[in-house]
């Protein structure tokens, strides 16, 4: 996993609630056996007419050139539905390093963190402040300080991040290395349980 410490970037606004993982990456694209290349199908059916890459839907934000950046800002309950980690892979492959919302679905949140994509939970009010910004405004996210700042206004909010997960993110550690290091205590647990 890639380490993540700071992000300063413009953002892509997606002011829609309950964005489910079927929208982030539709099931028909889950047939790969590797983690690569999902970005081109990110939000596939919102992005293109009739599944045709030559027919981008002009109203969808990923097709609007004025919006770009490493931060996706979305309405509440982002990532609900299917547990497919392909959703996190698609966001990462497309180039997003953080998703900002007022509320995340649990499984998506875990999947994102396990891939170095930071879910940033802000208040509904702060979220609306971001949606009101212009496309060229930037946002700064500091993982160590657990803060998100709107650079133009200086408005800042802190966000929750489990200390263990924070260490993982800052250093690019993953859970599997940690769990393997606990093998002896897991074997001991098995002996006591039986």
């Amino acid at each position, binding site marked *: 996993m890639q380490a993540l410490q700071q992000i300063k970037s413009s953002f892509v606004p997606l002011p829609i609630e309950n964005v489910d993982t079927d929208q982030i990456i539709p*099931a028909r694209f889950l*047939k790969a056996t590797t983690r690569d290349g999902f970005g081109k199908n990110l939000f596939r059916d919102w992005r293109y007419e009739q599944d045709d890459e030559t027919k981008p839907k002009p109203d969808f934000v990923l097709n609007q050139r004025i919006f770009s950046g490493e931060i996706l800002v979305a309405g509440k309950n982002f990532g609900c539905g299917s547990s497919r980690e392909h959703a996190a892979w698609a966001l990462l492959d497309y180039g997003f390093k953080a998703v900002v919302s007022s509320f995340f679905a649990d499984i998506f949140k875990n999947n994102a963190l396990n891939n170095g994509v930071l879910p940033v939970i802000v208040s509904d009010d702060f979220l609306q402040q971001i949606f009101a910004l212009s496309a060229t405004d930037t946002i700064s996210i500091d993982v160590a300080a657990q803060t998100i700042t709107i650079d133009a206004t200086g408005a800042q909010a802190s966000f929750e991040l489990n200390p263990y*997960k924070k260490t993982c993110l800052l250093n690019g550690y993953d859970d*599997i290395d940690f*769990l393997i290091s*606990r093998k002896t205590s897991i074997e001991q647990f098995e002996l006591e349980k039986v």
Partner: protein
Amino acid sequence: MAQTLFDKIWDAHVVEKIPNGPSVLYIDKHFIHEVTSPQAFKGIEKRGLPLFRPKQTIATADHNVPTLNQHLPIKDQLSKMQVDQLIENCEKHGVELYGLGHPYQGIVHVIGPELGITQPGMTIVCGDSHTSTHGAFGTIAFGIGTSEVEMVFASQCVLQTKPKTMRINIEGNLPNGVVSKDIILYIIAKISASGATGYFVEYAGSTIRSLSMEARMTICNMSIEMGARGGMIAPDEITFNYIKGRIYAPKGADWDKQLANWKKLYSDQDAIFDAEININAAEIAPMITYGTNPGLGMAIDGNIPLTESITNEGEKKNLAQALTYMGLNSGAALLGMPVQHVFIGSCTNSRIEDLRLVAELVKGRKKHESVKVMIVPGSQQVAKQVHAEGLDRIFSEAGFQIRQAGCSACLGMNEDKIPAGEYCISTSNRNFEGRQGAGARTLLASPLTAAAAAITGVVTDVRELINHN
């Protein structure tokens, strides 16, 4: 101290609590399927690790499989590759696979309970959000991502933060024509698609206790649709009778020993939940959804809410977008609206009892000529039972197409898809945009309500058909 059922099972599986961090949670059973496991197998191979406890993982192929002519090679090359990869991975790593052609093959959340693998007090995970189904047996069962599948492969553990607990009490007798699917659709409509996010739910009360195991599974299955980490029901005699004698159920003295443990699995009388909701079963009517998340549901004879009546701007926009996609009008009724497809299947409603309910209603009747009806048993064993009970004859005579076991039209991944713009009354669990195929419009309902629409060709209040029976 008084404990909840959830706490009892959770505490018994914590290997270690990381200070200010998640817990190392031991996993008793791990189910895998072809879609969310290949990258995890690749991951441990890249690390040069063996599977830590291969005997605790059970595999099947369900998401990608065709539901016709399963004896022939899979036509879609990518699907075939994924299913072949599963076979290869299971052989290489010593995992038991109930693949295509095996008499135990089927939807992962149908076969686990049916084979007696799912047992009270266990922790169960699978790279699939509907793993919550297994909670019906008094287990902590939840969906995980592929990185977590790799964690279980490597260590038989996952790192989890303990969720909050919620109890939903449902009391009283269910009205005529109302079944367990209606209970869960009612709850989700009441608390929204995110109403239980961050919680693990226990369903309790006299209504729940009166339900069969299969009906309980339908309820636990859809816990994720209100955002819950999982759902569970305390095991009782109905649970024990269901498990007894199944292939992987404990036998002889081991049964007695396990049974004694299982009987301790309930929430203590004074146990405190972080949230509690009370529901009167008499208020529940046959339900149907009209929107693009499972929280947008109503009584079948209701009217879609008026967008202008919603004060929250986000919700208003959400509803307007959903209705545009669905081709429905704010304030309209759904009764009498023509549908083109009926899908009876999925990990929510493809078990023998679901199919018996359908058969009872359609016996001696025919489907409406304008509707295509697919009935997809959840497993090879369910299909066998359908045949043994002669239900297949009832379905054939009614003009229903009976297909072979798999996830089928629930998720638009295999050959079974609903065409763009057409309406499908579906017994599955998600009405998301494009879920049943790009542009498909899904109305979620119970097997009874789906069967009623199959007969009439329109959205129908099943109570009218029952009363005229």
